[in-house]
């Protein structure tokens, strides 16, 4: 009989086995009679340490531990879209059918539906030489996503047999290949891939397309690139989750992977509810058709929370390999870091900063580096963009997770408590945020949106920073003593803040704004600035410009001009010109009367 490995000790989610030679590092194992899913996290000459992805209560010393021979892996194949998984790719809907409203532990369910037959058309023929990543078949996965089934990246060979087009489930062989060693392999619609290994690509490509989100403050001021990385730090109540939801709903990615990592259960339900009803304005199909959710809420096992981030990025890479642009939202990476800390504490590792393990920066880097715009093994082009929310302790951005994340991301959208208190949403602080993608993306904006886009952005930013320094003075002495030009700067900055940066996620038109309208809005605000500046030079009082109500009208443009009726802007230009001419006349008349 085979010698058995048994549990030696149990401490929360961490167990040890005293024998050492049967397990490899990061191997997936099954613990106890119930077969709880677990992963080997350290091997020494005395013991093997294992973290368990499920609740360990009721487990006994002496229960068996069985190896699986492979690292923690996920199944990649049709059926991922529209689904909702837990941190280790177990479908939550199936788990609900099995155990009811409360999650039981030790549930063994297959990752993807193995019964469902897909409408497969095979793309290869006998004799074709295939290498890893090559597309062998396609099937429509949802109404808008065509699933391209690929060779596992580590398999290549000559096709010896193909199944005809038809209906197949994910376990039936589609193609048989003879590998270089003369061994025959059956390839199905789905294959397994270890979550902690990035999927290989041919090469990295230049980043040159923006991830259009329809959120003005992001697209115009702090753009994110397709294949880029972005962090959204903010204390609680500053709208991290709301911003992530807006990205998931409106960004122009083909596929959205939304990872709820250690967050609220009700939030995941909200995503499920809302996305189920929302129609994508571009494709006219339901949002859920392009979305996959990974929900590991804060009260689900902590080790699976750690895995959820990797599961998410692996699914994202898989769809990237088909040639799609994928956006991954991770809410929140701090919970993931805390899961690392919690497990590190259980292992009694020497803590570094604030109790986080010393390998936190390298783990963060490893995660964000899986983003990128790539040429894939099968010569398609795709991208994975990663947008990670960070929940700094005490809203203090100097804490380790925020600081280390900052080193690996190129776009940083700092959410501000004070803005949130004033209900200025999205509460992105324009002084603390930055994007390093200007250079990469400006050619795109110039070519596809408007030549003056980068220039307008520059002017907007400088007006805002001018306002910030003026506000310091205003706090001390009030606005009355400022010269008219500075008063105008404050007014224009107010228009930019309330009329442009503030965006109402619940307003039908304002929730998503196309780049063109963003451009028009910037243009008209700066046109107003120039015009008003001229008037001031010619002796018009700033209060009379304010009283003319033009500024208020500009602020309301976001509601008053529908996204598809941009010709309405002409009327605004005309009104500005007319009113300005009138103001000039009035002031001349007043001056001549006084004189």
């Amino acid at each position: 009989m085979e010698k058995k490995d048994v549990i030696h000790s149990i401490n929360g989610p961490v167990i040890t086995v005293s024998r050492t030679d049967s397990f490899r590092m990061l191997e997936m194992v099954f613990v106890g009679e119930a077969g709880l899913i677990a992963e080997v996290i350290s091997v020494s000459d005395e013991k093997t340490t294992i973290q368990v992805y499920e609740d360990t209560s009721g487990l006994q010393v002496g229960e068996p531990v069985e190896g699986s021979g492979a690292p923690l892996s996920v199944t990649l194949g049709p059926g991922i879209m529209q689904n909702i998984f837990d941190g280790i790719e177990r479908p939550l809907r199936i788990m609900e059918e099995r155990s009811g409203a409360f999650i039981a532990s030790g549930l063994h369910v297959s990752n993807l539906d193995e019964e469902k037959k897909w409408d497969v058309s095979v793309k290869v023929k006998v004799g074709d030489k295939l290498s890893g990543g090559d597309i062998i078949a396609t099937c429509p996965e949802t109404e808008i996503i065509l699933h391209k089934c690929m060779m596992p990246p580590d398999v290549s060979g000559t096709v010896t047999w193909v199944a005809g087009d038809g209906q197949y489930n994910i376990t039936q062989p589609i193609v048989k290949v003879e590998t270089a060693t003369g061994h025959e392999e059956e390839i199905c619609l789905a294959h397994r891939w270890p979550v902690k290994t990035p999927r290989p690509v041919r090469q990295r490509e230049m980043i040159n397309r923006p991830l259009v989100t329809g959120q003005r403050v992001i697209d115009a001021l702090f753009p994110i690139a397709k294949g880029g990385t972005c962090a959204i730090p903010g204390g609680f109540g500053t709208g991290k989750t709301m911003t992530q939801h807006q990205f998931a709903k409106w960004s122009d990615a083909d596929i959205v992977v939304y990872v709820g990592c250690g967050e609220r259960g009700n939030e995941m339900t909200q995503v499920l509810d809302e996305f189920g009803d929302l129609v994508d304005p571009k494709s006219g199909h339901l949002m859920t058709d392009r979305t996959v959710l990974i929900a590991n809420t804060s009260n689900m096992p902590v080790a699976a929370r750690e895995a959820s981030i990797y599961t998410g990025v692996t699914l994202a890479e898989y769809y990237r390999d088909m040639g799609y642009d994928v956006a991954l939202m991770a809410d929140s990476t701090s919970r993931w870091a805390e899961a690392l800390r919690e497990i590190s504490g259980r292992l009694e590792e020497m803590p570094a900063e604030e109790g986080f393990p010393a390998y936190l920066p390298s783990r963060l880097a490893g995660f964000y580096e899986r983003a990128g715009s790539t040429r894939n093994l099968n010569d398609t082009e795709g991208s994975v963009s990663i947008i990670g929310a960070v929940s700094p302790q005490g809203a203090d951005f100097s804490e380790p997770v925020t600081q280390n994340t900052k080193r690996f991301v190129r776009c940083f959208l700092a959410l501000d408590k004070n803005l949130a208190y004033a209900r200025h949403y999205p509460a992105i602080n324009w002084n603390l945020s930055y994007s390093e993608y200007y250079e990469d993306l400006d050619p795109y904006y110039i070519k596809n949106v408007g030549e003056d886009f980068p220039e307008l952005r520059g002017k907007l930013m400088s007006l805002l920073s001018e306002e910030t320094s003026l506000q310091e003075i205003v706090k001390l002495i009030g606005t009355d003593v400022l010269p008219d030009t500075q008063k105008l700067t404050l007014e224009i900055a107010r228009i930019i803040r309330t009329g442009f940066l503030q965006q109402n996620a619940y307003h039908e038109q304002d929730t998503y704004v196309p780049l063109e309208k963003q451009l028009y809005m910037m243009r008209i605000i700066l046109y107003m600035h120039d015009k008003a500046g001229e008037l001031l030079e010619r002796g018009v009082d700033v209060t009379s410009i304010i009283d003319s109500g033009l500024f208020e009208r500009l602020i309301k443009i976001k509601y008053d001009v529908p996204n598809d009726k941009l010709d309405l802007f002409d009327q605004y230009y005309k009104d500005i010109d007319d009113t300005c001419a009138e103001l000039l006349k009035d002031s001349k008349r007043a001056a001549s009367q006084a004189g």
Partner: protein
Amino acid sequence: MAMEYIGLKDINGPLVTLEGVQNISNEEMVELRTKEGSRLGRVVTLEADKAVVQVLSGTQGLGLDKVNTRFTGKPMRIALGSELTGRIFNGAGVPIDGLGPVYPEEIRDVNGSAINPVSRAYPRNYIRTGISSIDTLVTLIRGQKLPIFSGSGMSHNRLAAQIARQARISDEREEGGGFGIVFCAMGVTKDVADYFRRSFEESGALTRVTMFLNLSSDPIVERTMTPRCALTAAEYLAFEKGMHILVILTDMSSYAEALREFSSSRGEIPGRKGYPGYLYSDLASIYERAGVIKGKPGSVTQIPILTMPNDDITSPVPDLTGYITEGQIVLDRYLDQIGIYPSVSVLPSLSRLMKDGIGEGYTRADHQAVANQLFASYAKVSDARGLANVIGEEELSEADKRYLDFGNHFEHEFLNQGVEEERSIEESLELGWRLLSILPRSELDRVDDKLLDEKFGPVKSKKEDITPNTLPLPETGAKAPKDKKRKQAVDTGPSA
């Protein structure tokens, strides 16, 4: 099969270690019997033939020998039944009201298990508390967890008792087994526990209240189990009996301290401020038990109360709580000092679920608009106050003066409310409109013009703008003091 072991290997704080034990499950309950009586414990760590047991009622008086230990083979469970309401239990779920044990319709593991996100129903209906500031600005939604962040000496207990007395589900006709309260006290003083009990008694609410009491003199290990017992009872009443349950947990800070004490006695590596690294997961395992489940009529709503050490909202317990709960009600010491009750600090308070549980069909169509405008306008009040401190009130612009006026009325008439005073949603919203009418119309930028026209009549000319709107001003019953020294200056710009 239950084995009995004699003697212990060592005793360390609330933990005892046994050696030579077999077939012990993680988290199993243990009974330790001595001459004096028996106490309960729970297995927390297992290593080979050693078991570390956490003794719920403390290890005082235990010796290494003369202790008989019996392993029950079961995790900690409590008996549940429909007669739970009106009963009083200690922190470990044992009845202490002299009415004998609960007739068990069901026995459940107190640790519960996570609600599958797919099975949750998104909370969409509100609970009326009769308190203007909460109902209008931070509406409590059924299935929500909305903590009160307070400090020692502030009126959080009075507020919680008032909420418990006045709370009504918005629609009484709706299906379900009615409304109930589970009150869970962790480390509170006897006076506080008595206060709540008396207050429930006087209002006749005691019959719908289930109390779990772990007083400050009770053992800390028991305290770590108290909220779990209370929530197990709440889940049972909500999801089996179809009741809408409001759970009041006070004080979560004592709970976290108990956890810290217990963690350090286990020799665990401490995280921030000595709290264990798993504090977030542990708090989440309590808070996340609030919710509504698809296809079940009941709901579990939580109001955890926590006292912030030194009123510091960034200390670990409020900080982590804020990341888990769906908003927070923050009390302000300055408002408390000038006699405003409830001293809700409006700007940092937030109810994340409110937007979907108010408005047409729930409260009133204009609710969101009024709330947004009150928030935005009140945020500007502190700007105006800051400016007035520097340049004096006389020098302020007309609009800023109106903001000062608005701020004082808002605090003294809208926030301020009697302990027995119950305001309907209608009353609160109308009061909000009247206060907003103090401000010039151009400042009301969060409300649709259409709605403004409806309330104040159409604008006639631009010059009219600075004059007050047409609603009658609220009576200035309360004297508005000049508060020159605001502690909490919030400005609307970003912090540089």
